């Protein structure tokens, strides 16, 4: 199960994660980076988050998982 998500520095704001999982990721234009939305139940979007992380072209999305 995904416990925590963080975006490393040097996000290129390509919109890939926002496109794949808009419930969790969005681009913050002011900050110039992708952010993880607050107060989201990550367990509901497990597969989409993993796909977004796996397809990040710069491997910038990091996940911390816990085993049930």
């Amino acid at each position, binding site marked *: 199960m995904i416990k925590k998500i963080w975006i490393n520095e040097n996000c*290129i*704001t390509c*919109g890939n994660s926002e496109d794949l999982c808009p419930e969790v990721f969005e681009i913050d*234009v002011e900050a*110039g980076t992708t952010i993880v939305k607050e107060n989201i139940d990550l367990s509901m979007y497990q597969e989409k988050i993993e796909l977004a992380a796996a*397809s990040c072209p*710069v491997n910038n999305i990091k996940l911390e998982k816990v085993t049930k």
Partner: protein
Amino acid sequence: MAKGIIAYFDIDTGFYPGLHHGLAYLMGTANTKNDIKFFHVFEENHLLELGDLIENNIWDFVGISFTTNQRKFIWDLFENNKVNNQLLIGGGVHPTLDKENTFKELPEFDGICVGEGEIPLLNLCNRIDNNQNILETPSFIFKKIDDSGKTSFKTNPVSKLMHIDDLNDPDYTVFDYKQIISDNGNVFPMMLGRGCPYKCTYCASSHLSKNYPNPQNWVRFPSIDRSIRIIKNNLELYPDTRSIIFADDTFTIKKNWVKEFCSIYKEEINLPFECNARVETINDVICEELTNAGCTSLDFGVESGDQWYRNNIINRKHKNAVITKAFKTVDAHGIKGFSYNIVGMPFETPQMMKETYKLNRYELKSARYGRAFYYYPYPGTGMHDLSIKYKLLRPGIEQLTGYLESPTVIEKHSKHKEIRKWFKKINLIFAVRLMCDRLYIPRIICEYFIIPITQLFWIPLAGIVEPDKSNKIMKKINSKIKLMIKKLRDPGHALYDSNDVRKI
């Protein structure tokens, strides 16, 4: 050994270098065991020659690769030649983006190849050779007509995206590459990787990726070894190369790759080069690496100076400040920044186009060359869907062949006169900057003296810099000036116009 022909339609597109990298890779892969002729159709009179070639031979297949703006020439080809006795396959960007309409608009096609064609074409050839059922070939859609005349389609799954290292090397010799590169000032355009991660709504890239079972692998960078080997092979082909253009969509995405590439490129190749970049990927570190390796210019898509429009309609989510910072950074490292823009997009108002003008004129003084293009709608893209939904496209745009002819939207949010005005004014800025740089005129004089004067008299001057297609005299003057500028300093940017340089 399958016998086929691949025709690449490239007539009157205006700005593009004549080498098609994808087709060079396709020919490098498919032609190893087969007899496939390649025909580069870049003038209207080539249609007669191609028609004869198709009619007077028995081919296992005739493949036609084209983009949306080349359809009118294919209609001409099919109308004036007997092509029905051949297996006709459409491929390339347009058939991939607009599968159903391709069969409707061009009913002569027996099939289309969806997406990248290297392995699918090889499979098709193998099936032809072995007398297997070609209708089952992955990545192809075939039209079937039963005895009652009813049409159905056999849609095969699209093959997975391959890693770029698993493809054969490109074969540029299928083009008249010596002439093309020589006309281009000995600048050799090459492509190493594939795919762009960005999702701009006017662009086909992100929509093309959706066709594959593994779209997450869309952006592919080759190994450094392979990159250097391909560059060396290309340079052996054309030893007079003075500069390279890397035509990869966004060369600067992977910082580690760029770092490693730059250090080895400097050692092994050591030629000036230019490449495409996104403003978000630019910082001092990457610029230093690029400069050390010999990068002379970076080409950026600015597209619109109106931040709201760019963020919300074009889906390019960055601030104007990020654009200006990127241009300043590359300038500080001695790299030239080039700015590419679009005018006449759906919902775009004159005020928004003026913002694009102002950004380029006042904030991006270091953009020493650039371009404004008219928006061209590619079916399957978000902006095209939006244009259709709100009925914003004008009739007759299928007759346009490039981005430099005329607006494609109806006069709802902007009059065509306004769109043409900003198109011409922006292009005049860049023409003047380019000329001043080539004549070694100091930037301060260019920006504060020459550009203001030329902008004041933009109507007659833009007539020379950006002549209307029908104005043959102005076009001739324009061609002469361009050729003259090209000779002023080299190696230069690919100041290129298909009408005046391809004298093959």
